[in-house]
């Protein structure tokens, strides 16, 4: 055994703890041969004796009898212990309750906030739904294939027809309101439901002749007639008829023609 090994067993040796007889004999033999380890063992044994002295000194020490009396009093009154228990645990319960109430409030406020947001979004939709029938009734939608403004404008030789004034705003409410106001005027003027092209001369007549006066006659012509004037025709509806106004001169000659479309039919 060397000093390092002795060091590891010195405390147990000094404390008189159980260890292998062989190890014990080796340690004692080493301490007999090594002065440093002998001193080390002697010091540890003195410390152990000191501990034993303290242990023996304190063995007789006990808690005062008053403690036993107090404990017995507490034992005979279980409610005291119970009260103590409740008193100690009340903060925990209170904390749980506060947590539960806080969670409940959070849920309630969340629900209210979600519903408030939902209503805020739904209100315009309701308003739009209410105005939509008006829009459907009062605002004629132009069919994609027949848009007089655009079709007529495609003819570079013809003067640009006056675009019907439309106010298109992003807000559906604004559109509906404007359309509603416009519809009030439309009720007074039936012609406002119609979109018409400019008069297109028939033949090579002097336009000055229009100043002589004449008469406009409403007729229906085959839709294919539009092609004769360079207006694109929707071939899906080629067999339908379109309205046209014929400007008839004072001499009874047809001077010009314009095509008319009822916006309400779109």
């Amino acid at each position, binding site marked *: 055994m060397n000093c390092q090994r002795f060091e590891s067993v010195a405390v147990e040796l000094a404390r008189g703890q159980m260890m292998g007889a062989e190890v014990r004999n080796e340690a004692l033999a080493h301490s007999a041969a090594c002065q440093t380890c002998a001193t080390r063992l002697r010091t540890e044994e003195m410390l152990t004796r000191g*501990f034993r002295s*303290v242990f023996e000194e304190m063995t007789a020490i006990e808690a005062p009898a008053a403690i*036993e009396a107090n*404990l017995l009093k507490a034992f005979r009154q279980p409610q005291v212990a119970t009260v103590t228990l409740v008193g100690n645990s009340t903060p925990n319960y209170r904390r749980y309750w506060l947590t539960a109430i806080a969670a409940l409030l959070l849920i309630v406020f969340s629900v209210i906030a979600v519903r408030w947001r939902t209503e805020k979004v739904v209100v315009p939709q309701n308003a739009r739904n209410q105005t939509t029938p008006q829009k459907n009734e009062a605002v004629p939608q132009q069919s994609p294939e027949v848009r007089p403004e655009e079709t007529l404008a495609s003819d570079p030789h013809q003067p640009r027809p006056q675009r019907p004034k439309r106010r298109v705003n992003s807000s559906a409410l604004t559109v509906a309101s404007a359309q509603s106001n416009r519809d009030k005027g439309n009720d007074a003027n039936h012609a406002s439901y119609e979109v018409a092209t400019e008069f297109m001369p028939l033949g090579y007549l002097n336009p000055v002749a229009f100043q002589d006066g004449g008469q406009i006659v409403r007729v229906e012509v085959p839709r294919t007639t539009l092609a004769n004037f360079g207006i694109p025709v929707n071939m899906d509806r080629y067999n339908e008829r379109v309205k046209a106004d014929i400007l008839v001169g004072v001499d009874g000659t047809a001077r010009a023609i314009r095509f008319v479309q009822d916006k309400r039919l779109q």
Partner: protein
Amino acid sequence: MKLKSELTDPELLRLMLSGDEEAFTLLYRRRHGSIFRFALQMCGSQQVAEDVTHDVFIFLMRDGHVFDSAKGSVSSFLLGVARNYVLRRFRGEQSTVPLLDDEDDQQFDQVTNEPGPLDDLTRAETIDNVRKAVLSLPERYREVVVLCELQELSYGETAEILGCAIGTVRSRLHRARALLLAKLRPVENAELTNSAAVQSARCFA
């Protein structure tokens, strides 16, 4: 039928929890001494030791059902509870003895200005010095010394109370004894013996 005084601690505890006052008295008288001494040796204060002893048995009345005999003896259980109360007091009050952290271990040598009690002082002085030296140890070393040396519990019982491994108890005890030797040794010999105690001087004999 066995007398109540012949009953084991777990049996007394079971009777106590069912409301048997005599069982409580027997258990108290059987175990209160070691708890009181443990608290006293840990704190160095009679008042604190009394409070801890009282609190431990109040806890036993209230929560004694948490004791599990598979995990250890009633004595170890009560000492573990007492340890918790003592540590709680240390944490809360920085109690009646100055506590030193591990960083302060080196201060032991400087504190020691008294003559070596192990050599030539009377037994009473030795006891007093040892107790003071134990009280000056850091908590984790002090509790091991108190349990293993001053309560004379085995490594296994101490490990059970502290909730650590036996090897941990053993190494802490070695370290604690080295610190105590440094504390109790005369200053002039401190350096020599300190190296012998802590750094394991080698002679390769």
